[in-house]
C-alpha cells in the first residue's frame, strides 16, 4: 500500500506534465492564443496602472536589472511592514514589531523564494504580515523566478529576445499563480484548512484543561506556499501542523501543487526548442534522480531507528519520531523528497528527526538543486549541467561543443563555472566558519555527528533557496539571521544573473547547421551523460561532508 500510493501520485504528475507545460508555453510564447480572452483585459489594466507603455524585448542586462530592482522594492516595503506590524491593522493577537536582524533574514528569505523561517508563525507575525508580507512575497518571488527561467529558455532556444521582465512578471501572476491559488485555496478550505480572521481560540478540553488554538487566514497562504514552491509555514510546525495539512488528501494536493509547475517546465522548454524529445530527456534525467533518492528515504525510514527498535517495542511502522500518524512513512517520504527536489522547503515531518540515511535524501537534493527545482531555477540549473555535459563530451572528442545548434565558447563556460562553483562555496565555507565560533556552535541542539548535519543542512537549505531546516538548531540569533541571509542572497542572485548572461550571449550567436558529427542532445545517451555530470560534478563536491555528517551518524547508530 505504501509503494502503491506513491506510484499513484507520480502517475498523476506524469499526466499533468503535458497539459500544464503546453499551457505555460502558450502563456509565455507571447503569440496570440486562447488564454488572452480570459486575461488580456486585466493585464492591460495593470500595464496602464504601472505606466508600462511599450512591451518590447529587453536586453539580458535590462532584464536582470528589472528583476533585481523589483525585488529590492518589494523587500523594502516588506521590511517596513514587519518592523511596524504592531501598529498596523489585522493584529488581533497583539503581536509586537519584529527585531532588525530577524526582519532582515525574513524578508530576504521570502523574496529569494527560500522561506527559511527563524520566527515562529504563531507568535512572531500578525495576520496583516502573514498576508501582505508572507503571502505577497510568495507570489512575487515565484513569479520573479518563473520569469527568469522563461527568459533563460528564450535565450538558449534562440527566440527574438529574452523577453520583457514586467510583462512576464504580470503574466505569471495573472495567468498562472493567482487563478491556481484561488482554486487550491477553496479546495483546501473544503478539506478543512481554516481561513478566518478570528484571533486565537480558547477552548476547555475534555480533560478540563484550557487549550489556546492558534488559527488565521491559513488556506490562502497554504496554496501559494506550495504552488510557488515557497514553503514558509503559517505555523512553526509547517505542513506537519494539522491546520496546514489536515489529511492525506490535502497532503497529496500539496505535493502536486508544488511539483506540477517545476515538472512541467522541461516540457515547456521542449516546445520553445521546437524539439519535444529534448524536453522529455531533461525530464527523465530529473525523474531518474528523483526516484533514486525517494527510494533511499522511503527504505531508510521504514527500517526505523535502530536505537529505538532495540527497545523491544513493535516498530513495524518505521521511524515515527517527528512524523504524523495520518501520513505514515509513505506520505512523509514522498513529501520530503518532493519538497527538497522542488526546493519548496515545506515539511510534513521533521527532517531533523529522520534516520541518518534517510536524511541524505533532502540534503543531497538541495545540494544538487536541479532535480525539478523551485520556480524556474531547477530547470535553469539542469540546463546548465546539460551545457556542461555537452562541453565535457566535446573535450573528449575534440570538437567545439554545440547546444541547440549554437556553439558553446569560453564566455559561456566561465559564467557556468561561476554558477556551479558558487553553490558549494556558500555552503561549505559558512558551515566550516560556524564551527569555528561559539556563535555557531552554541546553537547546535543534537550532540555528535548529527550536530554537524544540523549546521550543514541550514546553509545548504539557505543556498539552495529551499527553506526547510533541521529545526532543532536554535537559529534565531543575529549570527544565524545575518549569515544565512547573505547566503540566501548569493544563492539566488549570483547564479540567476550569471545564467541570464549566458542566455544573453547565446541569443546573439548564429545557429550552426546540424551535421552527422553533431552531438545529439535528445536521446537516451545524453540523458545518461546528464545524470553522470550531475552526480560527478554536483554530488562529489559534497561527498566528504556527507560522510562526516549522516554517514558517520549511521555507522555509530547501528
Amino acid at each position: 500500500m505504501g509503494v502503491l500510493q506513491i506510484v499513484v501520485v507520480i502517475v498523476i504528475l506524469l499526466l499533468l506534465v503535458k497539459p500544464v507545460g503546453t499551457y505555460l508555453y502558450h502563456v509565455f510564447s507571447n503569440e496570440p492564443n486562447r488564454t488572452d480572452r480570459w486575461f488580456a483585459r486585466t493585464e492591460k489594466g495593470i500595464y496602464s496602472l504601472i505606466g508600462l507603455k511599450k512591451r518590447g524585448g529587453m536586453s539580458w542586462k535590462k532584464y536582470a536589472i528589472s528583476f533585481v530592482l523589483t525585488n529590492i522594492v518589494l523587500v523594502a516595503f516588506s521590511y517596513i511592514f514587519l518592523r511596524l506590524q504592531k501598529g498596523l491593522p489585522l493584529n488581533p493577537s497583539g503581536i509586537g514589531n519584529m527585531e532588525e536582524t530577524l526582519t532582515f533574514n525574513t524578508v530576504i528569505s521570502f523574496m529569494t523564494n527560500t522561506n527559511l523561517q527563524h520566527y515562529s508563525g504563531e507568535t512572531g507575525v500578525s495576520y496583516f504580515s502573514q498576508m501582505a508580507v508572507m503571502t505577497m512575497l510568495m507570489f512575487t518571488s515565484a513569479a520573479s523566478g518563473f520569469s527568469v527561467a522563461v527568459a533563460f529558455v528564450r535565450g538558449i532556444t534562440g527566440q527574438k529576445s529574452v523577453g520583457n521582465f514586467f510583462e512576464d512578471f504580470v503574466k505569471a501572476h495573472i495567468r498562472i499563480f493567482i487563478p491556481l491559488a484561488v482554486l487550491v485555496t477553496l479546495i483546501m478550505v473544503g478539506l478543512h484548512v481554516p481561513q478566518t480572521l478570528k484571533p486565537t481560540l480558547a477552548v476547555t478540553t475534555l480533560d478540563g484543561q484550557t487549550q489556546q488554538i492558534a488559527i488565521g487566514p491559513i488556506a490562502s497562504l497554504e496554496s501559494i506556499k506550495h504552488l510557488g514552491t515557497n514553503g514558509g509555514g503559517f505555523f512553526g510546525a509547517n505542513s506537519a501542523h494539522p491546520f496546514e495539512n489536515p489529511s492525506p488528501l490535502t497532503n497529496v494536493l500539496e505535493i502536486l501543487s508544488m511539483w506540477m509547475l517545476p515538472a512541467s517546465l522541461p516540457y515547456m522548454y521542449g516546445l520553445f526548442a521546437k524539439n519535444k524529445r529534448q524536453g522529455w530527456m531533461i525530464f527523465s534525467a530529473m525523474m531518474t534522480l528523483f526516484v533514486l533518492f525517494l527510494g533511499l528515504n522511503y527504505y531508510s525510514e521504514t527500517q526505523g531507528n535502530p536505537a529505538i527498535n532495540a527497545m523491544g517495542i513493535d516498530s513495524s511502522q518505521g521511524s515515527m519520531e517527528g512524523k504524523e500518524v495520518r501520513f505514515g512513512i509513505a506520505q512523509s517520504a514522498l513529501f520530503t523528497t518532493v519538497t527538497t527536489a522542488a526546493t519548496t522547503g515545506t515539511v510534513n515531518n521533521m527532517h531533523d528527526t529522520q534516520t541518518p540515511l534517510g536524511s541524505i535524501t533532502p540534503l543531497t537534493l538541495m545540494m544538487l538543486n536541479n532535480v525539478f527545482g523551485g520556480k524556474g531555477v531547477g530547470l535553469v540549473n539542469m540546463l546548465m549541467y546539460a551545457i556542461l555535459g555537452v562541453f565535457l563530451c566535446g573535450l573528449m572528442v575534440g570538437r567545439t561543443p554545440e547546444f541547440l545548434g549554437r556553439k558553446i565558447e569560453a564566455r559561456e563556460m566561465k559564467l557556468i563555472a561561476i554558477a556551479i562553483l558558487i553553490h558549494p562555496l556558500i555552503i561549505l565555507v559558512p558551515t566550516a566558519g560556524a564551527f569555528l565560533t561559539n556563535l555557531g556552535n552554541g546553537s547546535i541542539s543534537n550532540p555528535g555527528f548529527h550536530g554537524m548535519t544540523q549546521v550543514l543542512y541550514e546553509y545548504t537549505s539557505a543556498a539552495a533557496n529551499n527553506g526547510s531546516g533541521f529545526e532543532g538548531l536554535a537559529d534565531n540569533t543575529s549570527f544565524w539571521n545575518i549569515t544565512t541571509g547573505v547566503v540566501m542572497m548569493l544563492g539566488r542572485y549570483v547564479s540567476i544573473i550569471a545564467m541570464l548572461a549566458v542566455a544573453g550571449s547565446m541569443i546573439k550567436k548564429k545557429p550552426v547547421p546540424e551535421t552527422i558529427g553533431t552531438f545529439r542532445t535528445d536521446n537516451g545517451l545524453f540523458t545518461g551523460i546528464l545524470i553522470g555530470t550531475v552526480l560527478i560534478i554536483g554530488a562529489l563536491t559534497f561527498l566528504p561532508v556527507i560522510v562526516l555528517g549522516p554517514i558517520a551518524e549511521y555507522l555509530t547508530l547501528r
Partner: protein
Amino acid sequence: MVNSIELEEEQQSMSKGAYFLMVVRLSVVFIVLCGIIYPLATTAIAQVVMPSQANGSLLTNKAGVVVGSELIGQNFTDPALFHGRVSSIDYKAEASGSNNYGPSNPDMLQRTKDFITQWQLDNPEVPLNKLPVDLITNSGSGLDPDITPASAIVQIPRISNLTGIPTSQLEELVAKTTKGRDLGLFGEERVNVLKLNMALSEMSAK
C-alpha cells in the same frame, strides 16, 4: 543585430526616474492584489460557503459547548481515557513543533526509555512487543490528533479495568472510530483520540 538596435532604442525611451517609478507602481499593485485583495476575498468566500471548515472544524459536546477542534490533539492524562502521542509542548496549540531530536540524541533515547518503563507499570497486561512505535514517539507538530488503531487497542485493557466497560465494547468503539485511508489509498488508518474519548465518555455516562 537589428533586434539589439531596437532594444537600445526602447531602453532609452524612458528616463531612469520614470523607470524606477514604474517598478514602485508595479510593486504596490501586487502588494495590494496578492497581499490584501486575494486573502480577504478568499476569506469572504470561505466564510460564506464553508464556515465550519473555515473556522477550525470545531467539535461540540451534547450540551453544545465547544470542546476543541477535531484536527488538533489534546493532552489526556486521565488513565481512564485514551492517550495520544508524546508531545513536547503538551498539546499547547498556541504554538506548535517538537524538540527535533535526531535519531542518536541521548535525551530522546532517555525520554523513550522512561516512557516505556512508565507504560509497563500502567499497562501490565500488555506485552511490550505489542506497544506500537507511534505511541512512544513525538509527532512532528506536537498536536497530532490521531493514533494508529493498534495504539488504541493496546490501551483497552487498562481502560476496561478502570471503567468496568467490557473489552469487547471498547474494541467495537475503536473499530467504529477508526478512519480508513483517504479514498481507500492515501495515508494511513487512524483513530482520532478526541472523538474516541468523547464517545467513551458518553458510554461511561450511560
